[in-house]
C-alpha cells in the first residue's frame, strides 16, 4: 500500500499598533526591504557581505524617498485645506 504524507502548517503573524499616530516611515522601509531583498544564511560570506551592503544602501534610498512622498502628500492636503478656507488646519499639517 502506498500513501503520501502532506503536512500543512501556518506561520505566525505579528501585530503592530500605535496610539494617536501612524507607523513611522522607518517601519515601512523595513517591511519593504523584507519583501524585496532576502540574503541566504548559507550564502558565501563575500556575497553575503555585498548583499547586506546593497540592502543597506537601498534601505537608505527608499526611506529618503518615502519621507519625500509623505511631505508631498502633506503639501497636497494642506493646499486643499487652505483652498477650502481652513488656513489654520493647513498650517498644522505643514508643521507635522
Amino acid at each position: 500500500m502506498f500513501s503520501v504524507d502532506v503536512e500543512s502548517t501556518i506561520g505566525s503573524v505579528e501585530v503592530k499598533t500605535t496610539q494617536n499616530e501612524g507607523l513611522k516611515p522607518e517601519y515601512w522601509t523595513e517591511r519593504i526591504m523584507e519583501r524585496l531583498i532576502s540574503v541566504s544564511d548559507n550564502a558565501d560570506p563575500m556575497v553575503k557581505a555585498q548583499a547586506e551592503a546593497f540592502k543597506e544602501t537601498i534601505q537608505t534610498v527608499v526611506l529618503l524617498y518615502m519621507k519625500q512622498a509623505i511631505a508631498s502628500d502633506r503639501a497636497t492636503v494642506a493646499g486643499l485645506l487652505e483652498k477650502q478656507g481652513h488656513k489654520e488646519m493647513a498650517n498644522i499639517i505643514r508643521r507635522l
Partner: protein
Amino acid sequence: MAISQAMCTSFKQELLEGKHNFLASGGNSFKLALYTSSASLGASTTAYSSSNEVSGTNYTATGSALTNVNPTTSGTTAFTDFADLTFSNATVTANGCLIYNDTNSDRAVCVLAFGGDKTSTAGDFTIQFPAADASNAIIRIA
C-alpha cells in the same frame, strides 16, 4: 471561549476539492476579520461569522481584503503569502483574526491568535505577515 491558532480542518479538505485559489491575478479574494477575546475560533471553524467580531472606529464588519501573493515553492515546500494589512486611524482591540475566502462562501482558511489583546487608539493596527519562505510563510504545505 478562546482563539486557538490553527489551519482550519475544513480548509484542508477544501484544498483537495479545489475550492481555494491564492493566485494574485485571477485568484479568489481573501479577507481578514478581527475578533475579541470572547470569540471561539480554532481548527473547527468552517466559515466567517460576525459573532464576537471587533467593532471600532475605522473597522468595518467582515474585515478588510487581503492582497494575495502568488504561491511558490522552495525545496519540497509550497507556500503562499499576503501583503501586510493595516487598519489605519483605527480604534480597536483584537485578540485574534480569521482569514477567509470572500469569493467562495466565506469559507475559513486559518485562525491566527495574537497572544493577547492588541489595541490601537486613533492609530495603525497592522498585521505583519511572516517572511515568505519554506520555514515561516503564513500557509505552507510540505
